[in-house]
């Protein structure tokens, strides 16, 4: 058996951002659920309170979801003020870490080199091929083992450029002072209660991404993947070497 070939895969900025964001996401979801419990009803439009019609409420959710939410709140017992303290401090960490990562990743060409989606890659035939490869637990193209596959690229692009920015801007749209300063936020999302609903839906999307991401890390080989995110070095699969 030959020694695995270690290739340099992740730049230091990518690794630092990844772990900062991983911890921040964990705190944002836990404290976000804590805040949600203060008024677990969602509305479309500019206003919405108990007497107004909600598109969903906590009591319409399956029991296992409600039980699960109770397990992950920060703090563990209901405390709106402390949930908000965690949420609003780490919101700054999330937003500024993303901004810094975006600037550095343009300069070090991580975005252009690794995340650029090419037209040929999103042809239905190519996408179907990558889905079959995933189902067969083959995540790396033997010709370019260090590159992201197209499903990976699309999910990272969606997370970095759509979901997290959407979380940040819908979050700002819930701030009464930001609504005064930036009224376009309300026009963009169709009102504060719509922004709050989109914030919740995007957070659910991010949670799904995290679950899929962790599952794929496990399936792709946990030590190799975690090491590559800590040291930057990643072992090429043997069939690719």
């Amino acid at each position, binding site marked *: 058996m030959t020694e695995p070939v270690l290739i340099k895969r992740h730049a230091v900025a990518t690794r630092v951002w990844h772990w900062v964001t991983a911890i921040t996401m*964990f705190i944002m979801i836990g404290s976000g659920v804590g805040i949600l419990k203060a008024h677990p009803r969602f509305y479309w439009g500019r*206003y919405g309170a108990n007497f107004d019609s909600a598109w969903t409420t906590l009591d319409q959710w399956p029991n296992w979801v409600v039980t699960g939410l109770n397990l992950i709140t920060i703090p563990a017992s209901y405390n709106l003020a402390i949930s908000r303290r965690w949420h609003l*401090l780490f919101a700054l960490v999330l937003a500024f870490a993303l901004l810094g990562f975006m600037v550095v990743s343009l300069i070090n060409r991580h975005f252009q080199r690794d995340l650029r989606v090419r037209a040929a890659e999103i042809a239905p035939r190519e996408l179907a091929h990558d889905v079959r490869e995933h189902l067969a637990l083959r995540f790396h193209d033997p010709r370019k083992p260090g590159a992201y596959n197209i499903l990976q690229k699309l999910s990272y692009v969606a997370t970095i450029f759509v979901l997290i920015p959407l979380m940040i801007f819908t979050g700002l749209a819930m701030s009464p002072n930001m609504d005064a300063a*930036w009224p376009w936020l*309300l026009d963009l999302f169709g009102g*504060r209660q719509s922004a709050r609903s989109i914030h919740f839906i995007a957070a659910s999307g991010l949670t799904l991404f995290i679950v899929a991401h962790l599952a794929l890390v496990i399936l792709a080989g*946990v030590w190799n993947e975690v090491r590559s995110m800590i040291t930057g070095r990643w072992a090429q699969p043997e069939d690719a070497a």
Partner: protein
Amino acid sequence: MILTRRALVGGAAIGAGALLTGCDKVIQHPTARRILFMGEEMNRGLQRALTDRAALAPEFSPAQMSPIFRSNGTRDPGTPGYTAMVANNFADYRLKIGGLVDRPLSLTLPQIRQMPQRAQITRHDCVEGWSAIGKWQGPKLGALLTAAGLRPQARYIVFTCADLYRGTPYYESIDLVDAFHPQTILAWALNDRVLDVAHGAPVRLRVERQLGYKHAKYVMAIDAVASLDGIGKGKGGYWEDNVDYDWYAGI
């Protein structure tokens, strides 16, 4: 080293659980608590630095108003003094403006209603997450403070209310940026009717770029102060003092 998937998933669950309880343990430490609470200063500083201090809160059309404007917090102060005022239709009510001012005022409701008025249809955002849109009317707080002659040492405006919340006198405070904002008014009318008891009769504060808990109801006295020390527990309001709410409620 061999890691089974079962061990990994179990380990991840224990790790997540440890982190969760860790979050609660961490903030019992005074330094960690101070860091966590610094978020308020950071958000306030950023918002004040990056946004226009005079920017107006969005105003809405009559068609966009909530069909029902819900009330919460204290819905009736119920103290003997307040109940007597209600029975008398607030004929004996006097709004006192004092503290660091040159000409303390004591205003009756008719006097408040005869001053230059501002009416605005705005959105009330409760810290819990709900919003309601209603029309408020009353004199600008800034005009009252100018009439009273604010002294240069004044930095905060404190509102003393008629209600006790869980036995503690309710109060709130804002700084001069918000106090002199054109939409900061002392409302005596909601949706073109005289304010009812549930919504803060006879007079409540509207400070439109802050969350609902800053909009003190049942305002009895307004004092200009140099510092919030020595008032209540010193954090600037009932909720700030007793349950760790942020004093800055613009976010």
